[in-house]
């Protein structure tokens, strides 16, 4: 696909669940191919709902959402998702879990075996292939989940607070691994998080959202070159970006408190 063509487009989208209040209002968004977009904001601002609309799990109320020019449901083959929980099937081994999306797409056994093994070695879980999820630590489970999502070589990856439940060190490692994987097989990403430093480290565009109704308050561009190394976190310009986003976030939350 041509670089910088929009892969996800929101055109003045609003969303309410049933007869409830508006969860999202006036959302305009154009995610370009190669973007790493992060949505950050207070709880209940509809960050995750944006992902649900993109994946076609939930319908929008007014406006229009397209993925690669199609309705979201038609574009599911282009996307993968990583959830807050690793969402592994407990009765399958790590290997079989990574194979699952390929299995659902009817890929033949030999291909998916080889591909899953390759993905697991990329996330450094060679030795854990035959382990069941309960035998894995939180970080390992999440790595299996990443391997599973990337096994189908998605154009678009949706990440719904995937590292929120992990300790900071594991989270930093996984951030770095995610960028390394992305350098090997590029994908466009929409990422939801509560962590400002994670957002700054990973993305090139950050949208700060406000709640009630969920809306975009500000966009921050992050121009650090790739590949990004762990040392970046100690640079003053990194800290400056974190402060900028935090300030915006405080303003938004201030509005909410009042």
């Amino acid at each position, binding site marked *: 696909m041509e670089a910088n063509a929009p892969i996800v487009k929101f055109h003045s989208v609003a969303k309410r669940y049933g007869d409830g209040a508006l969860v999202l209002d006036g959302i305009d968004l154009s995610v370009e191919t190669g973007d790493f977009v992060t949505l950050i904001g207070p709880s209940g601002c509809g960050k995750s709902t944006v992902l649900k609309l993109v994946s076609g*799990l939930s319908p929008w109320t007014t406006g229009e959402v397209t993925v690669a020019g199609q309705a979201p449901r038609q574009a599911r083959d282009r996307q993968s*998702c990583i*959830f807050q929980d690793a*969402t592994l*099937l407990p*009765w399958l081994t790590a290997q079989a879990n990574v194979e699952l999306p390929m299995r*659902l797409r009817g890929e033949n056994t030999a291909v998916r075996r080889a591909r899953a093994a390759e993905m697991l070695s990329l996330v450094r879980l060679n030795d854990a292939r035959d382990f069941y*999820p*309960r*035998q894995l630590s939180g970080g390992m489970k999440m790595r299996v989940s990443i391997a599973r999502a990337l096994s189908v070589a998605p154009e678009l990856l949706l990440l719904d607070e995937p590292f929120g439940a992990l300790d900071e060190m594991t989270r930093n490692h996984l951030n770095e691994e995610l960028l390394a994987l992305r350098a090997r097989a590029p994908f466009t990403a929409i990422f939801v998080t509560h962590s400002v430093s994670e957002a700054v480290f990973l993305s090139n565009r950050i949208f700060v959202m406000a709640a009630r109704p969920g809306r975009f308050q500000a966009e921050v561009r992050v121009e650090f070159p790739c590949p990004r190394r762990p040392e970046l976190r100690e640079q003053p310009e990194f800290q400056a970006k974190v402060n900028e986003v935090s300030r915006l976030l405080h303003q938004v939350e201030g509005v909410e408190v009042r």
Partner: protein
Amino acid sequence: MKRASAIWGWILPVVTGAMIIALWYGVRVVTGMQSWILPTPLEVLQAAVHERQLLLAAAGNTAVGALLGFTLAGVAGWVTSIVLGSSLSLRRSLYPWLLVLQMTPVIVLTPIIVLWAGAGLPGIVTVTFLISYFPVVANMTQGLLSTDRNLVALFRMSNASRFQELLLLRVPSALPYFLAGLRIAATLAPIGAIFGEYMVGSSAGGTGGLGFLVYSYNTQIKIPALFATALTSCLLGFIFVAGVALFNWAVLHKWHDSYEQPDR
């Protein structure tokens, strides 16, 4: 620590058992009851040894009826649950009537069962089936409906068909529930078979199961032998429950949280 706790797991029930036997003897001695009203544990054991051939043959017959009814309940329960779990309207139409079936005392149905299925094994299997079917359906259906919502979202996002969702997600995740249902069914199946033999079998000569022995010993006032029959029935029940526990272990121990995790 673990070893000690395992040893206590054996000691405590044995101690309780010994206390119950002591109490049993005590009641007998204090009240001075006749042996044909309350036999001593020793007399029960003696009767069991004396009647061992009859008891064993009868237990074998009962086991066949119980196993057939139990297997049928397991298979039919599995299939019914999948039907119920796959559609809300089917669930709404059928579930109340399954409840009605469950609420109807089997004793009321027995004459009808004899009339339709015939006396002997077919009737006994039917009674066993009726008693053990519902727990399987109730548990497994609950399991099919309790699938983790995030996993369902994962399947939907991967464009899984409804059939794939059922086969690869809902059924495996309902497995622990199904097995819980089977465990209840396993405690009920021998009881169902014995009750069936007592009601159905005795009315037509019987197949000579434990239920028939109950009838026969009762009319002969062989009370110690009656106690021995109760003991045999318990043992049969234990074998059923142990069988399901083994099956449960075989299916779940590798991945399910109910089994202790291997040390790593």
